[in-house]
């Protein structure tokens, strides 16, 4: 035992608090946080596994046909691939994370196990129907699949609303979960309506403009809002940093929500000034978020930058670059290659890196809590970080960054060799990450047995 523990022992045996030792405890309410696992972690893990499987399909598809990204961004195959990544992979993973994280952050017991499983079934069926339908431009089937996805999102929204209504800790971070879910509802509604309209021809709309609005609703409204809120709980939690008050976080989130409220209708209606105003508000919100994140980072006690957090910050940086590129795109109307590069940078470089970076932290933690949590106190348990492979995760970060850059450059230049190199780098990165996550998952079936001598 180290000297400080001995000092603690001495302090206690004297029954008086010593300087630097444990403080005297005052009477408090002996209330535990709510049960931390959503249905024993099976729900978040099932969502994450489904999402990762969809991501593997998207990665394999792109590696086999990288020239797809030299096509216009509204080409049926490109739209199908985008939905594999956004709906199949990223949204599925994020829904699992919401079911797990939100009740814990709000200190409200998880309820709605059956609804969550129904959501996963509806979502998986909907995406499986939509993607081939997109690739073959059968918009009626796309609308049908979209309705299944939308029904799942309604179930998620009910679960989120219940938690937010029940919590006594409502703050801007929890509100970000609610706002993100609301944007998601609007995104799927617009998507289903657009697909149905393309199938039935109810009314004439500028399809490209509505598609742009739909894409920004999803990426900006759901993913960016969710990341902007959640990072202020997750980064302090994983680094022992401190968030001193949520007022500035609230201001940053308010700016992003206002920016989206201006940007999305302006994109749909083709109003350039509105697009620029919305983009400026969003950029301002990103700057505020970066500023506040830097303050949290400066207070961290865990100094080492783990691969998962590296990937997360890589994603945030790529989202910042994408915001700049997107703003510049308003001046180059009709540049389809630049628009595709923007999408690649935002989705693969930004959201995918940030979400998968957090997976490197969340999945080991969930597995640890399910497998080793009940053993605490009975036998030595490993740290959550010891379950995966930091080497594989480090390789993922490097390969993912290289892949995203090459894909964005290849899409901008319409250069298939760059696209192929980027697609293969991305695939290699996903294999590395998959290897680490598989190593973590193996503990579900083959737990590590530690003796008291080597905890």
């Amino acid at each position: 035992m180290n000297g400080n523990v001995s000092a603690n022992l001495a302090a206690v045996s004297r029954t008086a608090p010593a300087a630097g030792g444990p403080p005297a405890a005052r009477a408090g309410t002996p209330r535990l946080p709510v049960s931390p696992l959503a249905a024993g972690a099976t729900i978040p893990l099932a969502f994450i596994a489904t999402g990762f499987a969809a991501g593997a399909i998207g990665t394999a598809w792109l590696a086999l046909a990288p020239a797809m990204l030299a096509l216009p961004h509204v080409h049926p195959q490109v739209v199908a691939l985008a939905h594999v990544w956004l709906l199949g992979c990223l949204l599925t993973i994020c829904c699992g994370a919401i079911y797990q994280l939100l009740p814990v952050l709000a200190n409200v017991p998880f309820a709605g196990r059956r609804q969550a499983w129904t959501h996963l079934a509806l979502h998986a069926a909907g995406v499986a129907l939509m993607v081939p339908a997109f690739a073959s431009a059968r918009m009626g089937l796309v609308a049908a699949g979209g309705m299944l996805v939308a029904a799942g999102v309604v179930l998620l929204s009910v679960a989120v609303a219940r938690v937010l209504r029940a919590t006594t800790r409502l703050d801007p971070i929890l509100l970000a979960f609610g706002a993100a879910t609301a944007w998601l509802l609007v995104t799927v509604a617009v998507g289903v309506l657009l697909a149905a309209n393309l199938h039935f021809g109810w009314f004439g709309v500028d399809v490209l403009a509505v598609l742009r609005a739909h894409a920004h609703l999803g990426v900006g409204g759901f993913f960016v809002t969710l990341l902007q809120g959640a990072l202020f709980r997750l980064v302090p939690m994983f680094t022992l940093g401190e968030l001193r008050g949520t007022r500035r976080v609230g201001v940053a989130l308010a700016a992003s929500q206002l920016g989206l409220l201006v940007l999305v209708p302006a994109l749909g209606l083709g109003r350039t000034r509105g697009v620029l105003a919305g983009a400026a508000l969003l950029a301002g919100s990103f700057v505020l978020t970066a500023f506040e994140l830097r303050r949290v980072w400066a207070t961290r006690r865990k100094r080492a930058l783990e691969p998962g957090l590296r990937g997360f910050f890589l994603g945030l940086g790529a989202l910042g670059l994408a915001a700049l590129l997107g703003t510049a795109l308003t001046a180059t109307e009709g540049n389809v290659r630049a628009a595709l590069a923007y999408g690649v940078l935002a989705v693969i470089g930004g959201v995918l890196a940030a979400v998968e970076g957090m997976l490197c932290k969340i999945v080991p933690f969930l597995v640890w809590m399910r497998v080793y949590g009940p053993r605490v106190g009975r036998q030595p348990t490993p740290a959550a970080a010891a379950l995966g492979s930091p080497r594989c995760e480090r390789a993922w970060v490097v390969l993912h960054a290289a892949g995203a850059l090459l894909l964005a450059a290849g899409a901008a230049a319409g250069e298939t060799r760059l696209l192929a190199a980027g697609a293969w780098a991305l695939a290699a990165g996903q294999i590395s990450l998959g290897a680490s996550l598989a190593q973590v998952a193996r503990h579900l079936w083959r737990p590590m047995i530690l003796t008291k001598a080597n905890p």
Partner: protein
Amino acid sequence: MNESLTVERVWSVLATILDPEFGLNIVDLGLIYDVTLADDEVRVAMTLTSPGCPAGEMIHGGVQRALEEMPGVGTVCVDLVWEPAWTPAMLTAAAREHLGWTE
């Protein structure tokens, strides 16, 4: 009272419990505020790094289980307290070194 049951032994047992996120034992992490013994009753006052700590239930239950398994222990009472709130200043020097926090 069992002669082998001492406050020091209780602290030693508590120091075998690891926090999953930081790989530090809960004593070095500063989560244990107080340990008292009265006959075969062990009473521990502990906290968590935050009220929303996701591993809180596991750690609290683990402390209870670890102490119940100690020879000579009759009753175990683990009080979870929020005042004073945990702060990083409660980390021991060993914990700070482990985390790379040299301030």
